[in-house]
């Protein structure tokens, strides 16, 4: 009965309500995605003269030393930044939920860098690092370790405030009576933190961990602007490894900087990258589901 009076009139308005999004979504996502999968199996210079070659591009991508280097570099970066951002973000959130005067001001300041775009962030920090390093006669572009830790510092500055907001929401949801009970039972602050607070904010910790992991893997703008992959190492066989180049930038460079014959390889790399990122997303989903069942 409900359906009779309500659903049918709306159905007739399909083109107005769902039409625009369906059309734009097809242009902006569905078609490029399908075409991208197809082209990863092709050799092409222009899309219209693509020829099917099977898994050749994937073999070339996995044999590409610069791609494998960027994978390990990205993984190392993502894990390191995950640890730093989450510990510091949680610490900030914990400190700001203790009822200290001026907490709102601190929260405002810590979150602020999150609104600045990646390109601008990269150039701000490249100026700062070079300002420091030039005193020792070097530059962030000259050593891989400077580029790595520089990007970690940059990402901490940008993301700590973001994770802090999620952790604050989690901490505020910890039941007050549980904390009270722990206090009455004579638990110390540290005991309360590890035995009561942290188990209660596990959902926030899961969200933030996966969020910083995907952010680390997908990083592009900051990487491009801070070091752009420098310093470079020329391999014995003539190819170049850009030591601070992350996955997204490697794919970009394969598409647009190398000779046009490698576009198929670049698309194959992009598909592998997609599988990796989507895999992390699925792992998060599975993990959250499992926890929900347990509870």
């Amino acid at each position, binding site marked *: 009965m*409900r359906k009779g*009076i*309500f*659903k049918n009139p709306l*159905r007739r308005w399909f083109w*107005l*309500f*769902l039409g*625009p*999004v369906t059309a*734009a*979504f097809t*242009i*902006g*996502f*569905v*078609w*490029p*995605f399908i*075409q991208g999968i197809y*082209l990863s199996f092709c050799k092409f210079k222009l899309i219209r003269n693509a020829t099917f070659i099977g898994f050749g591009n994937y073999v070339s991508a996995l044999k590409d030393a610069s791609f494998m280097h960027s994978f390990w570099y990205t993984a190392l970066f993502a894990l390191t930044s995950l640890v730093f951002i989450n510990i510091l973000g949680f610490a900030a959130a914990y*400190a700001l939920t*203790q*009822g*200290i005067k*001026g907490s709102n001001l*601190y*929260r*405002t*300041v*810590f979150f602020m860098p999150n*609104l*600045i*775009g*990646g*390109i*601008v962030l990269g*150039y*701000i920090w490249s*100026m700062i690092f*070079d*300002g420091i390093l*030039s005193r020792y006669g070097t530059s962030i572009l000259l050593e891989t370790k400077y580029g790595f830790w520089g990007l970690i510092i940059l990402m901490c*500055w940008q993301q700590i405030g*973001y994770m802090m907001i*999620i952790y604050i*929401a989690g901490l505020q949801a910890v039941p007050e009576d549980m904390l009270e009970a722990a206090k009455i039972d004579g638990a110390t602050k540290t005991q309360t933190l590890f035995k009561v607070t942290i188990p209660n904010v596990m959902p926030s910790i899961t969200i933030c961990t996966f*969020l910083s992991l995907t952010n680390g893997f997908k990083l*592009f*703008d900051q990487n*491009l*602007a801070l070091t*752009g992959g420098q310093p470079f190492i020329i391999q014995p066989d003539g190819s170049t490894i850009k030591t601070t180049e992350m996955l997204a930038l490697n794919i*970009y460079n394969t598409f647009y900087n190398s000779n046009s014959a490698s576009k198929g390889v*670049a698309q194959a790399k*992009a*598909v592998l*990258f*997609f599988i990796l*990122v989507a895999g992390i997303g699925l792992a998060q989903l599975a993990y959250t589901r499992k926890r929900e069942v347990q509870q």
Partner: protein
Amino acid sequence: MNKQGTLAAERRRKTIMSVVLAVICIIYVLPVLTVVINSFKVNTFVKTDTFAVPTGEMWAGFANFIKGMTFGNYPFWNSVKYSVLITVASTALILLFTSMAAWYIARVNSFFCKVIYYLCVFSMVVPFQMVMFTLSKTADSLHLNTPWTIPIVYLGFGAGLAIFMFVGFVKSIPLEIEEAASIDGCGPVRTYFSVVLPMLKPTMISVGILEIMWVWNDYLLPYLVLDINEYRTIPIHIQYLKGSYGTVDLGATMALILLSIIPVIIFYLICQKHIIKGVAAGAVKG
């Protein structure tokens, strides 16, 4: 006595924490301050005396700003114009059409609706690099490569998160309100605009904030889609100044960076509550 002791200790602990936080806070603002002082500094000193306050011969006044405005044969003002146009148009388009679509999806719930919905959820885990080449070619062949048409591309690529958040909210609205409207003789279009849309306001603000932040700061999508000799957004412009070969005028670059983050910071200070709430909502759901 003992209780007073713990209270005093507690107060001392809070004071120490407060001081530590204040110091961290100052460290946090330093990068922005560095941008400010360097935007008034003569270019040659930016590299050598990055952290010095510009006085005497280092002081450049507003020369960097004037230079930056016309730097690189492209007027900065045009970038500002295009950035504002693209951000406003894309956000408006996304808010209007995805909320309409989300209402339709939640209420009709046909097979096709489910397909669209799950595709949207799926699109949220797809990184941009996966589609960047084919998307820019598709946009090119459909002439979506101008600031006036690129919002359609944003609507397409950004629909996922918006649809997901709106559908989640619409499902929590009781059907009875809409049924009452339809009994009173409202057609679906009127029901949507005068009954459903006003109820969506909180989600609209959250989604709007997320989209504004994304589109305003986005570099790669407009760089690949737009004809960059004619149309540059602010991030593209800054990347061009700094990333191009030859000598880079750091002073002028910092002046432009300062100009581009001032509006963002003002926007943040005005809508702080909404921004923090919107970002948290997007993170928890995404």
